[in-house]
């Protein structure tokens, strides 16, 4: 089986909506662009408190 690899471009991470490129050998096209919202509530908690609560 021949896999045709298309040419894709990185999405620039935006201030209004950040996006990730997801690499996955099991999906058509081998990857896709997603809004960066996985576990968004928890991510926000970490980011808001990195210094004050987590000493980072």
């Amino acid at each position, binding site marked *: 089986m021949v896999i045709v690899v298309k040419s894709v471009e990185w999405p620039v991470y935006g201030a209004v909506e950040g996006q990730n490129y997801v*690499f996955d050998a099991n999906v058509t096209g081998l990857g896709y662009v997603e809004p960066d919202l996985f576990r968004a509530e928890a991510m926000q908690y970490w980011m808001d408190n990195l210094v004050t609560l987590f000493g980072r």
Partner: protein
Amino acid sequence: MVNTCQLQVPVVDGDFISQSATTQLQNGEYIKVPILIGCNFDEGASFASESVNTDAEFTAYMESVRFGVANSSVLDTLSVLYPDIPAIGIPAILHGRPAAAPGGLGLQFKRASSIIGDALMHAPRKFMTEIWAANNLTSYSYRFNVVPNGVSYSFGADHFKEVAFVMNNVKGDGYVQKGGVDPFADKLESFKGLVKLITRM
């Protein structure tokens, strides 16, 4: 001195590390260049405790890796943000609830994996890309979700698994010689297709 901490993390020593990296990023004290940054879906599975069965053990685990430094309200909040629901923990491809430890990975392994991966990698990555974006700097972010040959599905796409792909190492050079297995052996052609895609971007 005996180091009882499970993880090695940067600390401000006034010598190599002058202050909080977070603070430096917030103050604009970093090199303004485009960055490409990302993490694997299941990074946390490489670092999580494999002995968490109960809520109390989950809390003790968070304390042991210094989340919130003995602040119970922080630990309570994190427990809510990372509930004991295996179906939304990581690795997603590890279905159901893992077997109890010892013997199994721990009833709450997927919960522990989720929180440690976010704390160490996913949240800091997002923090950086948001700072870059807010300052009109270019950044590109990825998430990698492939389990190479020779790796247990229990750990999913965990730490280091992207390396053979991004280094275009389709022959698996170095893996077998070092006692491992070829990450591409017996895998779909799509794996090599993904190498092409990644290394051409």
